[in-house]
């Protein structure tokens, strides 16, 4: 069910927008929206193929084991910085990095390392960068990367300072 939840939400949004278009201009508007979407998609196909190839080669070249090794034994702020680096470099969506985060949690990583890892994946993501540049453009992408650059290590450090005592409960929680 979760696998298709995104499809369902998107289809509902599409139906909603199609209804709005139909009420505004009848069948011609309904068709016009579809055609406009199709022509935009056709226009972006060369870009999308390159993006998929880049993502595929990155996943093939960067070994998950290497990234896990960098982090597993580290502690303190150095561990948080390494976690940020690993999070930024690791490609793939949440179905790919949460299993890794769980493996780190089970093998003894602290709350700071884990929060830093997830936040760096979200904000630094190198594999998403070409896509972001290509579609959103350089102004938005550069501004966003510069402004959020310090956040992953900072939030990892804050999490370590405030919530270190909860890590055993968290670890037990996922074993239950």
């Amino acid at each position, binding site marked *: 069910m979760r696998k298709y939840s995104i499809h369902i939400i998107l*289809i509902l949004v599409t139906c909603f927008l199609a209804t709005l278009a139909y009420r505004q201009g009848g069948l011609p508007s309904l068709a016009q929206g579809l055609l406009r979407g199709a022509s935009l998609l056709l226009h972006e196909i060369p870009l999308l193929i390159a993006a998929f190839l880049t993502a595929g080669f990155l*996943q093939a070249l960067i070994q998950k084991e290497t990234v896990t090794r960098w982090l597993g034994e580290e502690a303190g702020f150095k561990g948080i910085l390494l976690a940020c680096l690993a999070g930024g470099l690791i490609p793939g969506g949440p179905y790919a990095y949460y299993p890794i985060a769980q493996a780190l949690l089970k093998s003894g990583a602290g709350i700071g390392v884990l929060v830093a890892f997830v936040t760096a994946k979200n904000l630094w993501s190198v594999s998403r960068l070409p896509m972001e540049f290509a579609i959103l453009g350089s102004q*938005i992408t550069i501004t966003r990367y510069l402004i959020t650059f310090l956040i992953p290590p900072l939030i990892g450090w804050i999490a370590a300072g405030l919530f270190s005592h909860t890590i055993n409960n968290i670890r037990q929680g996922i074993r239950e």
Partner: protein
Amino acid sequence: MNTATIVLWVIALALGGWAWKKRDGSLKKGGVLAWKTARQNGALLVIAFVIVGYIDLLSPTELIQSWIGPQSGWKGIFLAEGLGMLLPGGPYVVFPLITILYQSGASLSATITLVTSWATLAFLTVSFELPFMGWRFTLIRWGLGLSIPLIAGGVTLLIMG
């Protein structure tokens, strides 16, 4: 063929060359992974572009400008944070949607809040986080994360107006 497409093709070909030079099956593995990603996201992409087509057609420019437009300031940043949590899907789906909102008149600070909020707080990501990390971790990570899009949007607003 725009600059971005060319740059991305150069990167893809360079990585492909590296994978080929390693001669350990990386090239084939990369190709298979690329095809898998394309197949997984293909249907979503088509739907997402249909949505983009309709938004473009309806172009609710006035609505977007009054909610998250140049005059919306902090109100726009808070609205963009909420909207970002609701954006469904990965970058292939979300970035075209955000681009069309930006082109329809969303401000730079609200757009950056939107990207950051989607990246850190999206409910669909949380639906993966909960089973893997448990509710305690998710609550701490997501709760601390609430401040991030506000900081990103606020700094953009203060620096670039």
